[in-house]
């Protein structure tokens, strides 16, 4: 240990004395065995791992898109598959090519995908629910439908274009009607009416 440190120090002093030409001569030892991999080979090995991971996610996601019973679970499968799959592919491409501009474009595509996929899936899911798409029979909870049928919810999608009644014209905001007392309600009212 101490000897290794000392020889390292000696090498540093030699490099400082003789300049960078001596550094090359000290680094390349002709008697040492040739390495099995260079850095490019190791990067390619990492690229293979990333590529196979991305392929796994992409295949599994599209099997989910084909097999799942309703459009919401298909969206779940599709967004997972596309995000993770293209992450693996981009990682593989950047590791294999290993140039700075390619890495920049890869980061750009990655950020765009991570922003755009949830936004697009959310809009599609909202349009699907709005249009009353087919739901799987085993769906446990549909809170958006509960909120839409709740008269205490002030703004829902049905009321956005609605003309307010005359006594509310000119008031700031759309004041909701008071919540009717309904003991048969399945979920407890979290907030009193009018505060939402």
């Amino acid at each position, binding site marked *: 240990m101490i000897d290794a440190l000392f020889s390292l120090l000696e090498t540093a002093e030699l490099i400082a004395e003789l300049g960078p030409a001596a550094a090359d001569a000290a680094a390349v030892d002709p008697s040492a065995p*040739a*390495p*099995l*991999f*260079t850095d*490019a*080979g190791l990067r*390619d*090995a990492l*690229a*293979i791992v990333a*590529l*196979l991971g*991305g*392929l796994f996610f*992409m*295949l599994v*996601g*599209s*099997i989910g*898109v*084909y097999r799942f019973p309703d*459009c919401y679970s*298909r*969206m779940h499968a*599709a967004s997972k*598959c*596309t995000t993770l*799959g*293209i992450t693996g*592919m*981009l990682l*593989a*491409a950047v590791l*294999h*090519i290993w*140039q700075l501009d*390619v890495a920049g*474009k890869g980061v*750009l*595509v990655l950020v*765009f*995908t991570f922003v*755009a*996929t949830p*936004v*697009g*899936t959310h*809009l*599609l899911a*909202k*349009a*699907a629910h*709005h*249009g*009353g*798409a*087919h739901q799987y029979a085993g769906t446990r909870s549909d809170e958006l439908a509960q909120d839409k049928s709740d008269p205490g919810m002030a703004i829902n999608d049905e009321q956005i274009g609605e003309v307010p009644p005359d006594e509310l014209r000119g008031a700031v905001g759309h004041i909701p009607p008071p919540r009717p007392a309904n003991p048969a309600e399945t979920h407890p009212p979290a907030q009193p009416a009018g505060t939402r």
Partner: protein
Amino acid sequence: MTPAAAAIARFVAAAAEPSPPAAAESVAAPAGDAFIETTLLYSIDVGIFTIAIAILLCLARIIKGPDLVDRGVASDTVAVQVAALVLLITIRVESLIAFDAVLIVSILGFVSTLAFAQFIGRRRSVHQS
């Protein structure tokens, strides 16, 4: 043959031949690298087939899909899979020409998803009124 023409012929022949130092470097590359390179190329071929199967599954969903939303979801997935396919082809042919197409394909897929969502919502409100 004039000496000028001979010099031009020698120059062309020297330009056409690969330079000897590059050949010497490729001989000196370690043996593990060649194995890794071959494995990467084979796994890229496997990946192209896998993504083709995935695109076929999504196309089957587009054909079968009982609802318009299912077709929208499947076409969004197909757009991202085409981007991944372009990435794989970029690695396979060793040229950076197609790399910009990945960004363009993913942007087009996002815009088409937005248009699909707008279309589904608009269609329902037109039917309602």
